[in-house]
């Protein structure tokens, strides 16, 4: 038992080695960029950290930013466990957003009671929407990367049309009607600013994703299909059915993310709506090694950097975009394992888990 615990800890530690090295390296690199802009890196980074976790409001901002990324990160991670690349998080999130914007208004008279109903509806629409590329793959062999990318466009334009035409508000700002405050996800309070209970929902979603993948028969199948289609087929598992399900479940996660943004943050779907959450979810999942716990940590990093960047830009001359550079470098290093090996030798790589050696037979 204790040896298993130790192994689990070593595994978790190993999984963290790469991201941590990557983060440190990116900050070192970023320091040179800050220097080049004529600023003091220490002041800039101090402002960055302050803006991310320096006060309850800052923490609230970080949580607020991390929330949708946890959902879209899970959308990528679950599909990835089945060996599929879900690039469709953006469109799936929009589908959830429009579902929530429409139902949130329609069911607004129910007050808080409408929240679970609306979110459940997001699960359904996201699931169905996510199933489309799954069916296209299982039936016709269409590659999910292509179809999910294309479905992003369809999803974004479809929801934009719905928000601008049938569901358009009377008001000045283009978009849907505002949802009744009673029917929105409430703020957490505690001085955390606009952070809402959506963050807790995201944590619950991560736990659900974990349980689904590692504690249910369906998750067992999804992981088997992802790791070895040949062995899964041999064991009598349906490859097609699991492909459809994994993408559909991913879609559902992203869609709740959209629903939570509407119910918790904006109260409606404006046009233009927030962009990039789906795509950043890919980065979050990469950083989190497609593990729900990793996804949460990755999303917090993304959220923290975004929130800290505002403070940094405010109190120094360093532009917001520095954090995009930092993130890009982090992702590059996390994915380019060979590079880290070059920099730190094989030992770092070995530490990062025997997993990497598997290809050597």
């Amino acid at each position, binding site marked *: 038992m204790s040896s298993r615990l130790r192994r689990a800890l070593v595994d978790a530690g190993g999984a963290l080695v790469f991201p941590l090295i990557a983060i440190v390296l990116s900050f070192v690199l970023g320091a040179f960029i800050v220097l080049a802009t004529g600023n003091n890196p220490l002041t800039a980074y101090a402002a960055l950290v302050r803006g991310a976790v320096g006060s309850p409001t800052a923490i609230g901002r970080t949580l607020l930013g991390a929330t949708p990324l946890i959902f879209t990160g899970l959308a990528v991670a679950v599909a990835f466990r089945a060996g599929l690349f879900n690039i469709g998080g953006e469109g799936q999130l929009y589908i959830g957003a429009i579902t929530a914007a429409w139902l949130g208004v329609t069911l607004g008279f129910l007050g808080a009671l409408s929240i679970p109903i609306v979110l459940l509806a997001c699960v359904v629409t996201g699931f169905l929407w996510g199933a489309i590329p799954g069916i296209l793959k299982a039936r016709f062999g269409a590659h999910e990367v292509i179809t999910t990318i294309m479905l992003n466009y369809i999803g974004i334009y479809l929801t934009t049309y719905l928000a601008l035409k049938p569901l358009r508000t009377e008001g000045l700002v283009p978009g849907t009607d505002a949802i009744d405050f009673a029917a929105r996800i409430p703020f957490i309070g505690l001085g955390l600013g606009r952070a809402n209970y959506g963050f807790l929902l995201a944590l619950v979603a991560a736990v659900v994703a974990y349980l689904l993948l590692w*504690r249910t*028969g369906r998750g*067992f199948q999804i992981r088997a299909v992802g790791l*070895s289609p040949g*062995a899964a087929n041999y*064991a*009598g598992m349906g490859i097609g059915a699991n492909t459809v399900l994994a993408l559909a479940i991913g879609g559902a996660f992203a869609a709740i993310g959209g629903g939570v943004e509407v119910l918790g943050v904006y109260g409606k779907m404006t046009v233009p709506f927030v962009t990039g959450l789906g795509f950043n979810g890919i980065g979050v999942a990469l950083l989190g090694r497609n593990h729900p716990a990793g996804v949460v940590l990755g999303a917090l990093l993304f959220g923290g950097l975004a929130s800290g960047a505002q403070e940094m830009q405010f109190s120094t001359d360093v532009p917001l975009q520095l954090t995009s550079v930092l993130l890009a470098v982090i992702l590059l290093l996390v994915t380019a394992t060979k590079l880290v090996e070059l920099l730190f030798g094989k030992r770092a790589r070995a530490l990062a888990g*025997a997993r990497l050696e*598997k290809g050597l*037979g």
Partner: protein
Amino acid sequence: MTEERTRGGTAGVEAPVVLEMRGVTKAFGPVKANDGVSITLGRGEILGLLGENGAGKSTLMKILYGLYSPDEGEVFVDGERAEIRDPKDAVSRGIGMVHQHFTLIPALTVAENIVLGAEPRKGATLDLAKAIKDTEELSERYGLRVDPRTRVADLSVGAQQRVEILKALYRKARILVLDEPTAVLTPQETEDLFSVLKELVADGLSIILITHKLGELLGISNRITIIRDGKVVETVEASGTDEGALARLMVGREVLLRVEKTEAKVGGPRLSAEGLVVLSGAGAKAVDGIGLEVRGGEILGIAGVDGNGQTELAEALAGTRPAESGLVRLDGEDVTRVGANGRQGRGLAYVPEDRGAKGLVQDFSLSENNALKTYDEAPFSKWGWIFPKAMRRRAAEALRAYDVRPPDPDARAGSLSGGNQQKAVLARELSGDPGVIIAAQPTRGVDVGAIEFIHRQLLEQRARGKAILLISLELEEVRSLSDRVAVIYDGRIVGEVGPDATDEELGLLMAGRTGGEKDA
């Protein structure tokens, strides 16, 4: 630890020593895969490496080839200390390796595969004509027959292996390591391979050969180093020993090289096929109208040269590949339209020939693999939830019962040695008390001790009234276990003989000469 070296150590090498590994130690966590291993290899010599599954042979060779770095120990090439950090270092030292699992790219041609990474160039482009010429020259010189222009995907296993060897030779290898090269070869292909190896050593190359087939090792090697539990037990001259002695040295006890078979108590038919037609992946008729019947308490052996439809037959019977037409019956019930899952639920066990890609999920733990087919049944599951603890407990029992090493349910399947992976598959398939067993190449890559064990298990199942279909390329195995032997050729059963059929009889049938016999 080098004092372990006894008679036939360095002393046995007459030719100049080209390679010496000294005191090599390598641990994976608590497992010491190599523990102070020292070997020497003379020029023009074939050194056999022998040892049980998991003894550490592949690990030692992977260290030599720079795939693993040793915790301790040194490597000397031509008397000079060699620091081998990765395969590139190994290649530059003249070391070549043919892995147990091939590393070729199926979509490329033979010539392209051979020169890949060391391409002859004309300006900035690949000089394909030169690549083809070089390949032809090499293959001519050593009798490694293969057409440089064919795509690797279209080659037989034996031919792919020749490409692997050519690849090493193209990189000027003078020390060639072959890890279980004959496990996947037919007897004829093995003979061809060995004549190539003899050519190579005559030309001054030195070879390290790993195989579990004692007869082969005695026939071709000069000396044999025996490894047990990561340590060198002894190095012996091949001319001064025999199979029994080798088996004793590697296992540490007496091994029965042939198991005793009791009288068959044949019951009713349990697994049968009628007019079965199955397509291969490429769409050709791989199985072309096969009818067969296996009764309880008997073993029906299927003999034949590889690639005559055995794989497709097994898969169609097990339900992992659809039948184009025909019938499959399990205990009298028509299961042609029932999937693999349903057939397994009706008591069918299937040991697939390709344990790496089918029998196991390499990145699953052993306990997950042990539950690969039963994860959704009690006691592993209830209402869709699975219980890893129950899986672990059951796996621990099965692994211990089948002597899988290490018997650790949390170990990743891919970290096991080849033979132990095979035992893990058998443990899963046989421990569920199946009524019908399809066993394809059940002893591929396992050591003599484990072969004895697996054969005993199969015979025990037979004694308990189970119906067993044994598909094997090893004629010896088919003959010693089966009650009846059906010979498959070109997707058809061309004849059925008793287990005492002569080599000639079987050989003729396997070559497709039926002599007017009717279907089995």
